[in-house]
């Protein structure tokens, strides 16, 4: 029973880790600069 509990706990923790990793990935950032030029 203790072993099953431990496995479930590990899965749960891993699940949370994976979930956090996914959120973190979707929120990664970059930068964009914009400028406008008249050409004629």
């Amino acid at each position: 029973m203790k072993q099953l509990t431990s496995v479930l706990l590990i899965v749960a923790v891993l699940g949370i880790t994976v979930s956090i990793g996914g959120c973190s990935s979707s929120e990664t950032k970059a930068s964009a600069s914009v400028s406008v030029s008249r050409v004629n």
Partner: protein
Amino acid sequence: MFNKLVVLGGLILAVMSGQSWAATDQSSFTPTSIKVPIRGIYLHSSTDNQGAEIYNCSGDSEADCLVDVASQTELDNLINTAEITTGTYDQIQVSTCKDEGEYNAQIKGAVTLGSTSYVTDSGDQPLKTTGDADYATVTFTGCSKNYDLPTDLTVVEGETVSVKLFVALTNIAWGKTGAVTVPSGCIAGTGDSFSVCMAYPDVAAYIGTASPTVETYHLSEGSGAAESAAAGQLIIMFDADDNLIGGMSRRLFSETSVSMGTNFDTPLRRITKLDGGNLDLENFGSSADDYYFKIDSFPRSTHSGNYNDISAPTTDQPYEAYKQ
């Protein structure tokens, strides 16, 4: 390459779908000042309709966000860097109003009709013969437009990308003695004595820091037609390596211009370079999936050719193109 340009304000094109009419009572001109409300600029994905804001006007009203697009000094005030979400983008979206459904642009300049010189005005008539020029206000339907990037842009974490927008303003407006030529982008004076119109101030979008080469062609209807009869213009931009950036079609009015049997009111929706250097192009029609005219092989020089109009897609319509 530019076949995915999406016109969110599709009504803009629909209301400007009349044919190109030229006459001796109207003439094109290049305004000295064009104030357009630029409310926001976004990288946009047409796949999932997601955007990343890279410029936002902090003002709450149209007046707070007016930018004189004829002034490079004012355009430089738009320069901005913003944090964006990583992803793949294929378009640039330029927003000119919120939920109003339309916006006003202000034009100031001078135009000659017949032998009389006029300047724009804010009064009962948009043109006058005496005094200093003032702003005539024209109204455009629609609040934003999406412009295809030359290639899809994938932005990864930590990267900084540079987006450049190019505006071409030569002969973008026209004055007329009489009623407006098209419903959108125009203003008529009392009794329709005078009117002033402006083509949609479209941009070409580019990723990088290029200074484009601009090629302008004036088109006349019919085989052997003179340059003075030109009633349409093609404006096409290339980067330093001669790669296509984008382009637009516009009306051209002069005292001697002769109307063409197609429409020059829209950006180019598709343009590709063929082996040998000619261009395969077509402009937008009354919707994002349609066209007004197309030319299968357009040499980049003064030439004679044929175009196809949407109303008779298999019939060759001869034209003369004059490179400016």
